[in-house]
């Protein structure tokens, strides 16, 4: 038998089938059956008939949007500074921002809780604020990294060209720098938005269970052995994430013909 390069993909395909395709099929199966195992749309009716469920979904969206927005607001100028040779002579600074990612995320989040309580922002009394702080802190590196790499690619003379053609620094920022870094912005936003929707450890630890995000809601039902309803919610999230990937793909087409990492 002649060796063909596509045989190399066999282990990966097996892995995908076992750990992605089959579980997704299970989710779909559980979502549309009841506890007795019969086909039903009970879960669908149950989800939309209880306002709490929809509220949790909307709140999760709100947190994801706020988190993405704040991360971009902090991360964008930060990446600009990091990508500028004048301010950042070595890549040590970049390392400093990436390094928190090396620490176990549970430990990091527990430490954040203790630090916040110690400086007087009580996780019990200001749950919303501490959750946002925790989310921003955890997802900031995911924003900085893609933005930093896009900005490194940007030619300094393009900014100079913009100034030269009569655009003041304000116009240069909005008409040249932002559009040229759009692929970076889109992939940064996707890398924050989607994981925030499904995250629950951060909100659980930092809000002392006052803020319930969709992820922890799903977790709750699975823990109560209500696999069918949990699966239905997981399916909803899967569809929403799929939809947002589809939308962002429209925007993130790289100018050089390639695609961003999503």
């Amino acid at each position: 038998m002649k060796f063909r390069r596509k045989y190399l993909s066999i282990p990966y395909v097996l892995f995908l089938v076992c750990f992605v395709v089959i579980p997704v099929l299970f989710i779909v199966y559980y979502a549309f059956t009841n506890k007795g195992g019969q086909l039903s749309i009970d879960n669908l009716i149950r989800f939309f008939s209880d306002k709490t469920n929809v509220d949790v979904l909307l709140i999760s969206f709100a947190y994801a949007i706020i988190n993405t927005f704040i991360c971009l607001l902090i991360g964008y100028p930060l990446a600009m500074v990091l990508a500028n040779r004048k301010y950042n002579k070595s890549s040590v600074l970049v390392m400093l921002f990436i390094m928190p990612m090396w620490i176990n995320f549970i430990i990091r989040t527990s430490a954040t809780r203790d630090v916040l309580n110690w400086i007087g922002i009580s996780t019990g009394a200001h749950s919303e604020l501490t959750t946002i702080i925790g989310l921003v802190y955890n997802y900031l590196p995911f924003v900085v990294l893609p933005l930093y790499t896009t900005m490194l690619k940007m030619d300094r003379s393009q900014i100079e060209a913009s100034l030269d053609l009569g655009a003041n620094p304000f116009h240069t920022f909005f008409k040249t720098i932002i559009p040229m870094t759009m692929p970076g912005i889109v992939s940064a936003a996707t890398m924050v938005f989607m994981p925030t929707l499904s995250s629950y450890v951060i909100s659980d630890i930092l809000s002392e269970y006052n803020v319930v995000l969709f992820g922890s809601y799903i977790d709750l039902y699975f823990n109560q052995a209500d696999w069918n309803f949990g699966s239905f919610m997981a399916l909803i999230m899967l569809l929403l994430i799929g939809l947002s990937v589809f939308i962002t793909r429209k925007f993130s087409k790289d100018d050089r013909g390639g695609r961003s990492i999503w």
Partner: protein
Amino acid sequence: MAKKDVILELINVNKKYEDSYAVENFNLYVNKGEFITFLGPSGCGKTTTLRMIAGFEKPTSGQILLNGKDIGSLPPYKRPLNTVFQRYALFPHLDVYDNIAFGLKFKKVAYEVTKKDGTKVTKYRKFTREEVDAKVTKALKIVDLEAFESRDVSTLSGGQQQRVAIARAIVNEPEILLLDEPLGALDLKMRKEMQLELKEMHRKLGITFIYVTHDQEEALTMSDMIVVMEDGQIQQIGTPLDIYNEPKNAFVADFIGESNIYVGTMIGNKKVRFLGTTWECIDDFPVNQKVDVVVRPEDVIIKPLGEGAVKAKIVNKIFKGIHYQFTAMVGNNEVLIQTTADHEVNTEVSLSIEPDLIQIMNRAYDANIYQDAYINKNNKVVFAGATWDCDITQLVNGSSVDEKGYFSTPDGKKYDLTDLDVIATIDMKDIEISDDLEDGNITGQIIQMVWKGDHYQVIVRTEEEEDFVVDTEWTWNELDTVSVKIPESKIKLTLKEDISKYEI
């Protein structure tokens, strides 16, 4: 050049980075409508000067006047100048049309409105869509890219991208168009074509062009006026013809075209001696002065033996298409000759040069003189960032140094010479350079090399920006790191200050 209708003037402009000058004492005026070129090797400060005019760099000192007004502190977006960048710097997120229209969106046009009470006020508005359209179409036509409006810039070839970059600049009708080596990234054939096209555009548009290049041929082809720069300083300003025919110094002669450069001595009124014989010339220099003599290869005439001024032997012949290039030896000196007539290698001939084709110029360097040398506490001399163990008794006749290190003069006085300022002089031929970096007292980089007939004159610059000028018969490469070796007996010392202060 004559000061006619001056549009841009640079007065005593300096640009200093940390502690070295990128541009030093730059004085220039540019007449309206001229095509002026800054020409020089890389690192000579030509791009820095252009960037100061564009506003990307602020001069450390000096003034930049545009139409008589100082624009030195204006940001680039407020200067009525536009730049064509070396690597195009087009905006990848915009198509050809939007790239060109970019600048027009920020332009304001003045117009007058008559109010109800009859008074007139000036108001500002942006260009309308139709106006932008007309201007972009015109610019595209000038650069010959009519059908490319909606193309993505990344799909264009280098030459086409360059045209878009030019269109993007000229569409704004700048008072001066600045071009930073715009053809550097193109292949030779394309470059030649664009040279002519740019020249044609300049003629049609009638705006002032300031062009930066390191390519002397490009400069000669395109410019009305050339500014030759080296090491942050202007070496010569002149028309291409002036620069070629009357180079001001050996550097310019060597950089522009090919030349024979010799060290000569003035031996009489308009008489100079080089290549082992005496030549009539038309430049007047003091008798006995050492000078640099420059002769262009095409100005040397080969004559039958006995009819010219000096005997020579042809040692090499290269066919160059239109002409032959010969190398002839006069004693130890090489002479480069270009002529259409054929001669055989190894024949003995005679050479002659018309008096007005012998260019005589002051020598840029006579000897290495270090004005800031001093003596340290070990009676050694410090200059050019190194310590030299030379004979300090040459400072005063008959003096000596005792075992305690004190300096005594014949009149019996004793001195402690620590910190005494002296001047150190070393002849160029006494310095040796070596590629064994351990060999000499100090290391440096070769920044310039000029062939002088039978030897090279090399300038070695140390890390502390001290220069050594060295005569050497060996070939080196520019930017080689070498060590400088000076036999300590060849360092001449003279007193710079009164020695009596140091008496003990």
